[in-house]
């Protein structure tokens, strides 16, 4: 049988060395910036995300994968061609998981962690959720196992995807020519992490940016609009516990204060920022406000 090594274990030391290299290059060139406390938070979130699945979650994923594998639809052999196919399908799976993680608050409550830094550097790549990986793996990866891809292969291609996404979290690398058409790149992913209304809800890709191009969520980085990183309501803390759980606490508070079941469901599964009276802002509302504010400016430009 084909062996699928634990490549994350090999990658972690390389991540640390690359973070150190980026700190040095960013300091020398003036491109990119580190805030020590922010980086500490990000790295501790990354550390916690490796520990969190050991509290029962990994076993749950194993059990669900085992069940899906027992009742698999097809016998898919372990070959390099099927690994490649599995990788592409898993990347498509990642696109939808990632998109839903931005569009539905239940999933956003985990994923917000990754976006909660106002900095964009390699340490941000490691700012990972403590609560979301399990749910994401069970809901979105199990169909691949059920199709007949070996669970070890599914985990392996997911790890390759994660490792790929590490290096794109940097401001040191500009545009990469024709690669920008096919692959997710630092430029594309800077847009994804930006809170500028023009850039909101864009570029959900993992490795292949083609999914955003196909499903209409692609936005290119503009030279005249530098991304501003973070979230709409940036956190006022570096505390990892509050970073990990603030949105879950927000959901709990909203749901306990909801006046009806419909409201409670809206708070849990509506878009982030949803409220029954519209007093909070969803990203759609923010984009609409921005479009309205800029209408005059655009008309003036068109008149010129």
């Amino acid at each position, binding site marked *: 049988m084909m062996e699928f090594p634990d490549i994350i*274990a090999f990658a*972690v*030391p390389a991540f*640390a060395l690359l*973070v*150190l290299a980026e*700190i*040095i290059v*960013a*300091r020398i060139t003036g491109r990119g*910036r*580190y*805030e*020590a*406390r*922010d*980086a*500490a938070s990000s*790295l*501790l979130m990354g*550390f916690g995300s*490796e*520990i969190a699945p*050991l509290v029962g979650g990994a076993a749950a994923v194993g059990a669900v994968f085992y069940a899906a594998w027992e009742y698999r639809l097809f016998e898919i052999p372990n070959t390099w061609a099927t690994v490649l196919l599995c990788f592409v399908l898993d990347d498509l799976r990642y696109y939808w998981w990632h998109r839903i993680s931005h569009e539905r608050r239940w999933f956003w409550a985990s994923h917000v962690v990754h976006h*909660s830094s*106002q*900095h964009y550097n390699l*340490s941000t790549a490691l700012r990972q959720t403590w609560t979301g990986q399990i749910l994401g793996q069970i809901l979105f990866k199990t169909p691949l196992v059920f199709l007949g891809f070996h669970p070890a292969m599914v985990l392996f291609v997911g790890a390759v995807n994660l490792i790929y996404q590490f290096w794109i979290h940097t401001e040191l690398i500009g545009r990469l020519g024709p690669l920008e058409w096919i692959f997710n790149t630092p430029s594309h992913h800077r847009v994804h992490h930006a*809170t500028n209304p023009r850039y909101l809800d864009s570029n959900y890709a993992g490795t292949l940016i083609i999914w955003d191009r196909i499903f209409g969520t692609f936005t290119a980085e503009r030279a005249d609009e530098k991304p*501003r990183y973070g979230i709409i*309501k*940036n*956190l*006022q*803390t*570096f505390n990892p516990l*509050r970073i990990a*759980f*603030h*949105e879950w*606490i*927000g959901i709990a*508070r909203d749901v306990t204060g909801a006046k009806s079941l419909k409201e409670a469901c809206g708070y849990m599964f509506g878009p982030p920022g949803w409220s029954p009276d519209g007093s909070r802002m969803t990203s759609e509302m923010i984009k609409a*406000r*921005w479009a309205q*504010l800029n209408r005059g400016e655009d008309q003036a430009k068109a008149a010129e």
Partner: protein
Amino acid sequence: MTGNLFLDSLISLGAIAVMVIAARIAFGAHEVPVNESAARERLAADEPDFNPRAWLIDRDGRAALAAGDLEFAVVSRLGGDLVTRRFRPGGANVTTRQGGVEISFPDAGSARVMIVAEGAVSWARKLSGVGVVIP
């Protein structure tokens, strides 16, 4: 890694410490002082439809409070960065102490913001919604 969870964790935490120290040495640990121009610029980016009409600036540069047409906004510092919160009168917990106004918000991602400045107490009344009519 070694395969021993405890040892692996210690190695990881050690590596984290090295990276954080490197970032601290390379970029320092500066606190951005919040003044009116910095707060105005940040507010324009975060809340472009907010029209600040009056400012209360903390004398130690920890935060700035802006009064708009119907709402308020706080710009506070977080290390080298700034953070904004926009709210209606009564939308934040407001207390006065030591010649300043302390503001806290219901969301779990927020922290208490203290602004010590002349006139802080009269601002506190407005922030609480006392004597303010919202259409």
